[in-house]
């Protein structure tokens, strides 16, 4: 039973392309997050959202934007892809308050050539 779905497992894009990474959750969670994972750097927060149409910058928002038009969907946009954005991108969701913890998607391995 998949709860957080990322649209692509692997993606190859060219430098300068506009890239959309989609994430959908079916748990009615208020919070959604985008991270990237790089060797030796761990999980770094790009953007997060507490509610529909709300977004907050994380630690490394430069070169990225997000969209949350519906509660279940959180999109990450690379405005003009660059090679240093080659990474594993992870989407997660969580509920506000109560028990802490994220549910992660399977990740999207993006390669920018």
């Amino acid at each position: 039973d998949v709860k957080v779905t990322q649209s692509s497992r692997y993606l190859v894009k060219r430098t300068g392309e506009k890239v959309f990474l989609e994430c959908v959750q079916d748990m009615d969670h208020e919070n959604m997050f985008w991270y990237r994972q790089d060797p030796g750097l761990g999980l770094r927060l790009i953007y997060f959202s507490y509610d529909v149409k709300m977004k907050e910058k994380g630690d490394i928002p430069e070169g990225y934007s997000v969209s949350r038009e519906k509660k279940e969907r959180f999109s990450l946009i690379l405005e003009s892809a660059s090679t240093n954005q080659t990474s594993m991108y992870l989407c997660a969701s969580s509920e506000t308050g109560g028990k802490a913890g994220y549910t992660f998607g399977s990740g999207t391995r993006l390669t920018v050539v």
Partner: protein
Amino acid sequence: DQQVKQNSPSLSVQEGRISILNCDYTNSMFDYFLWYKKYPAEGPTFLISISSIKDKNEDGRFTVFLNKSAKHLSLHIVPSQPGDSAVYFCAARRWGSQGNLIFGKGTKLSVKP
């Protein structure tokens, strides 16, 4: 400024022995701590958690210990199995936050048969 630190990038253990993964934190406002496990090309999955009001939580082969005075937690895996080989992330939630987790950089555990 790293608030959650995993100082060992890697750990190698023999099958059947104990694995101990360590995590230090600096913020005394953290109220909940979690461990996630991540296999290559997959998203992290929740493993075990502990509230700051406890000092131990056990789930099968996995036990997490919290030492608040030392701002230190550890994950014990006994006995270790080859399938435990993965990257383990320590995460902490700040009291009163909307659920944002702060992650360590991860420790890669290798369990040798």
